[in-house]
């Protein structure tokens, strides 16, 4: 049994699981790391919701162009085969189910694939949603990347989300530092574990875990 995964190892795993030729949107933060591990052979096309397909790596030095940024407002580059479009067309592309995979961070994911990743629900917080709800709703597959437990040891994969929802029944896989979970109509299945066992995980989680098929 291997050790728990680092963020980079997790990103590498997610990247490996993306089918060749896929169209993918990587959310801001941890999911962005996935792009470092996509190979040229995979021929994955990255979408950024501010109006581009065929996004390349982060721009460096002279490549920086203030008219070419990603959804995190970071300067990026353009790959051969790229295209630009306006915001309504870009979100139509997501909402219409044309992206194969969207990778997102999360505060919580429920056993039925509900996602909470935009708002802590704190009464004094200023809310901000951005494209989170659109991303959660649109892609054919929504993969979540997160640490499995909070700092005080609570599972973030829960029977029902307590944080305000981003989307209902939308997450299909949860990639964490301790295990990969598949969410299906049967329930939550553990595909693999890292430095732990399904029994050990089950002892710390309220969600019923099914073994790998």
């Amino acid at each position, binding site marked *: 049994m291997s050790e728990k995964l680092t963020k980079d190892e997790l990103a590498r795993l997610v990247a490996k699981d993306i089918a*060749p*030729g896929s*169209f993918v949107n990587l959310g801001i933060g941890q999911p962005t790391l996935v792009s470092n591990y996509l190979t040229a052979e995979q*021929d994955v*096309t990255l*979408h950024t919701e501010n109006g581009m*397909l*065929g996004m390349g790596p982060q721009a460096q030095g002279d490549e920086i162009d203030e008219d070419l940024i990603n959804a995190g407002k970071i300067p990026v580059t*353009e790959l*051969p*085969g*790229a*295209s*630009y*479009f306006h915001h309504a067309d870009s979100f*139509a*592309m*997501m*909402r*219409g*189910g*044309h*992206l194969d995979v969207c990778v997102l961070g999360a505060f919580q994911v429920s056993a039925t694939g509900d996602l909470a990743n935009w708002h802590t629900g704190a009464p004094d917080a200023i809310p901000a949603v951005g494209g989170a709800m659109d991303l959660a*709703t*649109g892609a054919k597959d929504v993969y979540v990347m997160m640490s499995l437990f909070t700092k005080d040891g609570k599972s973030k994969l829960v029977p029902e989300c307590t944080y305000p929802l981003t989307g209902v029944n939308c997450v299909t896989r949860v990639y964490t530092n301790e295990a990969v979970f598949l969410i299906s109509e049967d329930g939550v299945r553990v595909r693999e574990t890292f430095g732990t066992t399904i029994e050990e995980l089950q002892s710390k989680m309220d969600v019923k875990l099914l073994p790998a098929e």
Partner: protein
Amino acid sequence: MLTIAKSAQDAVAEIHDGATVLIGGFGNAGQPMELIDALLACGAKDLTVVNNNAGQADAGLALLIKERKVKKIICSFPRQSDSWHFDAAYRAGEIELELVPQGNLAERIRAAGAGIGGFFTPTGYGTMLAEGKETRVIDGKGYVLESPIYADFALIKALKSDKTGNLVYRKTARNFGPIMAAAAKHTIVQVNEIVETGELDPEVIVTPGIYVDTVVKIDGKAPAVTEHEVNQ
């Protein structure tokens, strides 16, 4: 990932009986004539076809209708001076017609590609084409609720594709192409030319390759499918 088909026949080979097929074009501009001919030759039947018209003269969609491959047509303008095959099928009760105002037709196709579940349009409000539909007065103006038109396949024509399926069109031949490409599960495009990826300026691409599944280059004007081939 994009498939570059060797022939129109290969490009349409997956179209199955009972499929809903969007067919681009307005008049001859943008009409994917060789793909339509190949669809006829491939023999798929019980089709639901979405096009602005219902076929003209003795070519393309008109032949599909003549051969009774089309169970239902969704269009805005079926009756033309040379729509005799549609007229005959319709009067014989052998084709179902769903008549849709042209702008609602376009917006319903766009809605399917854009993940919109329905929309309120002013077009048709208070007319017989709104009969039986939900209507609503919003800020004093009447609207009709219209639904997306989803489809299994789209057959369209573009000027050029690159090897990832990015498309550009030419003049008014653009018409229904971009919205049909986005609305279908499987989009098949005939183009005059296939260029290397990177040759099309990213600013001028009209249909991004994400919407395109199969392209086929058609050299010049292909010969029409003959009666003989059709009946095989």
